[in-house]
């Protein structure tokens, strides 16, 4: 494989700047700091209308009738549409097509869209909503996910026969997916009692993870513009343009090429933009009125407008020998998928396969359920099923360490996976996995100074409760905890989530210039920067333009699963290589090297073609003249397998990533307040593409894990969200977030481009259990619920609500 060297070639003063491994500025950075970067909510057109959505006030109800006449009579209202106006398919969905564009027959969660309006002012649109009359017959909500999973008499959320069944997922009744895994003696039919006899020490635990919100800052929004050809152009903040297109077009009754999507500025995503929100609604109204229609959700609506992280209940049992060697583990996890499937099947696939984490355990039994309820739909959020499991298995490791009287880090090291280990699905970890080394490094990182050695130990800003002045240092106890998380990277279980890149090399104004075009969603992570770096490294050209992402080029797959540097990075690299080959062919054609001259001895650097032996052969400007070289390539990762539906075996994952966290907390044990003092991470990323952006990913992910550990939970009671606002749903502020030291390792994955490993998710896993472990360490409380609530710390029962 030809590759550019990192040394300056003969005859060149320096290598190409701002390639991979450097930290060039984001190409969209200047626009983002001047306020000119156009987010989806900033789209504006002369004559555009404002869309608004009427949502169900009930979690579960039959729709007896909808009367829109009052709304239609309001001046300024251009259209009021219901399910009857959906031109094509009435349902869509990421994995199962079970979600109505607009509710018909029944509503299955509070907040489900029932009707949509377009008007000349957002306030007019909102008033029109109030004039739509919907007649409901309220039904009993199906709120208890465990009952939905296990009780055959539980009422059904989706009527029998109303959906095509997915046998491969053991879909039945309210079960969206049931995935068992059996290894060792469990695979041979042994009972837990029999296996338990093999262990000296047994610990059990029940854990819960609350419903977390992605809480991106830029709410759902977009602008649909009707086109002359009867199609529609949609400017949208999403994570995957082509999967949106694939779901929108059939519902509009249009061929895919009549539904053209362009990525508008995305204000964060974290999984919440994997599903559709207002896309089809905006297109329907635009096509109906013949005018551009813009939707912008406000924060409250945003809580109803996207899926959340699945709340989970977990039951674990671990057995070990006296020396700490794990013998067996059982896990049962119930993931509440809410009213529609969204990504639930895939989340179950991750939660089950990674259910006992990065540990060698000979006998394992896992039962993972993803279920329908009439709670808010849950789907993708950073960490995707692995976050919930990680809180469970890491809590268990600490419990086991305590039971054995062993150091929790030593226990983890003793049972750690490494390259060549097999996870419980039988899949080999065929890439470096230096978990033991990572744990040691985390333990050896310098600790923050003791409170007593602070210059002003009673400065409230350094204390739990902060400037609320709840303590001056009395009742404060420090704790330390560790967490390790194993995450699959890229899509799993047979998905071919390829990416496509088009790369063009030409001479502009006497200088070589590269254009990179993909459909990949820049959601803030910095993929735009990395695409440019790869082009510079591969083509030796500094001037790189990243075209806006749209559906005029092939799919890039989703900005999810930490996969874009790998997949779209891989596509850009491959397309660049194809361009480079054509440059070299041109060099040969021109007689600049002899015919048999191997490509491996040629490279591109500093805008020149360079031979290893002779130095600079020719500048790209002279070689190309007026000719442009353009190549489009798809990049596919290696194929993966479905888990078999009865024993959960199969090489389902593309790549594994790992992060280790050590958290240090100060806890006000009287008031139950926590201040995280330090949250340090060790992560192996295979290859650092952009050190600064990598740090941003690790720190951002760690902070989201902190949120889940200590504050973030959507409160749902009988299907009703009680806290849909930033006043009541708290995410970490700059005062809640500690300094975060990072130690990055680079053991390359031989299967991945540049050896890189997706980096955005693993820290979201490990940060939560590390912080909760630290709070346990400080308080001695069991703390089985994430987020930890003050009443859990002080030991009183939570208020019943």
């Amino acid at each position, binding site marked *: 494989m030809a590759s550019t060297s990192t040394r300056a070639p003969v005859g060149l003063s320096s290598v190409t700047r701002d390639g991979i491994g450097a930290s060039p500025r984001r190409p969209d*950075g*200047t626009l983002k700091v001047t306020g000119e970067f156009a987010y989806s909510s900033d789209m504006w057109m002369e004559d555009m209308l404002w869309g608004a959505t009427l949502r169900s006030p009930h979690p579960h109800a039959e729709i007896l009738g909808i009367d829109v006449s009052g709304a239609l009579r309001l001046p300024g209202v251009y259209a009021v549409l219901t399910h009857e106006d959906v031109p094509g398919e009435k349902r869509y969905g990421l994995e199962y097509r079970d979600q109505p564009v607009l509710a018909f027959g029944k509503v299955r969660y509070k907040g489900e869209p029932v009707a949509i309006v377009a008007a000349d002012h957002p306030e007019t649109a909102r008033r029109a909503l109030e004039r739509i009359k919907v007649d409901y017959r309220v039904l009993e909500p199906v709120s208890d996910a465990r009952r939905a999973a296990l009780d055959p008499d539980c009422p059904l959320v989706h009527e029998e026969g109303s959906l095509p069944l997915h046998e491969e997922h053991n879909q039945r009744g309210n079960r969206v997916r049931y995935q068992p895994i059996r290894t060792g003696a469990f695979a041979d039919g042994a009972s837990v009692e029999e296996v338990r006899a093999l262990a000296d020490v047994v610990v059990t635990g029940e854990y819960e993870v609350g419903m977390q919100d992605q809480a*991106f800052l830029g709410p759902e929004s977009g602008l649909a513009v009707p086109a002359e050809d009867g199609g529609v152009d949609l400017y949208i903040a999403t994570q995957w343009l082509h999967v949106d297109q694939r779901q929108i077009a059939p519902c509009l009754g249009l061929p895919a090429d009549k539904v053209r999507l362009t990525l508008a500025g995305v204000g964060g995503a974290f999984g919440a933009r994997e599903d559709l929100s207002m896309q089809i609604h905006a297109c329907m109204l635009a096509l109906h009125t013949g005018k551009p229609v813009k939707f912008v959700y406000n924060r409250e609506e945003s809580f109803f407008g996207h899926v959340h992280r699945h709340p989970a209940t977990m039951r674990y049992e671990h057995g070990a020998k006296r020396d700490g060697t794990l013998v067996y583990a059982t896990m049962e996890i119930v993931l509440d998928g809410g009213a529609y499937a969204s990504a639930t099947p895939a989340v179950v696939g991750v939660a089950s396969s990674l259910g006992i984490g990065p540990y060698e355990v000979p006998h394992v039994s896992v039962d993972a359920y993803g279920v329908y309820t009439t709670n808010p739909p849950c789907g993708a959020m950073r960490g995707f099923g692995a976050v919930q499991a990680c809180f469970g298995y890491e809590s268990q490791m600490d419990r086991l360490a305590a039971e054995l009287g062993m150091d929790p880090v030593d226990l983890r090291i003793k049972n750690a996976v490494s390259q060549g280990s097999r996870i419980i699905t039988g899949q080999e970890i065929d890439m470096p996995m230096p978990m033991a080394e990572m744990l040691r490094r985390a333990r050896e990182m310098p600790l923050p100074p003791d409170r007593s050695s602070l210059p002003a130990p009673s400065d409230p800003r350094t204390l739990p409760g902060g400037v609320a002045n709840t303590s001056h240092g009395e009742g404060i106890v420090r704790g330390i905890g560790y967490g390790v998380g194993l995450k699959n990277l890229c899509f799993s279980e047979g998905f071919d989530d390829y990416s496509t890149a088009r790369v063009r090399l030409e001479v502009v104004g006497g200088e070589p210039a590269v254009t990179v075009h993909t459909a990949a969603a820049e959601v*803030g992570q910095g993929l735009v920067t990395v695409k440019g770096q790869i082009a510079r490294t591969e083509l030796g050209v500094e001037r790189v333009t990243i075209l806006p992402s749209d559906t005029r080029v092939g799919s890039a797959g989703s900005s999810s699963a930490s996969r874009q540097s790998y997949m779209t990075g891989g596509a850009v690299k491959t397309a660049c290589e194809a361009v480079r080959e054509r440059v070299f062919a041109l060099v040969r054609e021109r007689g600049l090297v002899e015919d048999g001259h191997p490509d491996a001895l040629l490279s591109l650097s500093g805008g020149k073609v360079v031979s290893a032996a002779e130095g600079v052969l020719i500048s790209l400007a002279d070689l190309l003249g007026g000719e442009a070289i353009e190549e489009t390539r798809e990049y596919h990762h290696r194929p993966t397998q479905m888990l078999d539906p009865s024993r959960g075996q199969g090489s389902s994952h593309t790549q594994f990533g790992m992060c280790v966290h050590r958290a240090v907390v100060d806890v006000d044990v009287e008031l139950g307040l926590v201040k995280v003092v330090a949250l340090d991470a060790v992560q192996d990323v295979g290859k650092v593409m952009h050190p600064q952006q990598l740090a*941003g990913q690790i*720190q951002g*992910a760690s902070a989201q894990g902190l949120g889940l550990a200590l504050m973030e939970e959507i409160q749902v009671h009988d299907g009703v969200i009680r806290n849909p606002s*930033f006043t009541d749903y708290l995410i970490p502020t700059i005062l809640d977030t500690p*300094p975060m030291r990072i130690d990055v390792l680079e053991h390359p994955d031989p299967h991945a481009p540049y050896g890189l490993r997706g980096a955005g998710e693993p820290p979201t896993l490990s940060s939560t259990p590390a912080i909760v472990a630290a709070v346990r360490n400080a308080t001695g409380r069991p703390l089985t619920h994430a987020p930890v609530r003050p009443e859990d710390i002080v030991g009183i029962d939570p208020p019943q609500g």
Partner: protein
Amino acid sequence: MRVSFEVNGHEVTADNVWPGESLLYVLRERLGLPGSKNACEQGECGSCTVYLDGVTVCSCLVAAGQAQGRAVRTVEGLAESGDLAERRLSPVQEAFVEAGAVQCGFCTPGLLVQTDDLIERTVGQGGGVPDEAEIREHLAGNLCRCTGYEKIIDAVRLAAERTAAQRDGGGPA
């Protein structure tokens, strides 16, 4: 209703303003200044932070009518004026890009204004570069979901140091 005020040094007038419209709405939807962001409309996130007569406010909480006759400065008014290609970013803007404090960037406009204010109150008043605790306290009303705030703190420090160096050295840092 008609509302007239000054934005980034220019007199502006918005007509047909509804009584319930916020300053943020008028800036974004009526005056073509979408730089200030709406992430909560409840004063909880700081994405909409602007200067109103020199004081930073959440523009989502200010009724448009309250801005009548007053001076507003938004993120669009932080950089030196001039055409896009030539225009120089302010030290705060420059530092945010350079330090990697911008990911999705939705929080950025509000953070830039609030940081500008912090530097003005400290370095700008002849004081020293704010320490970490001061930075955290001053930015406590600005949520960022992407960065974990570490790079934001780096950026604030960098901008403050450069502004101080510029002040002390008399020239651009």
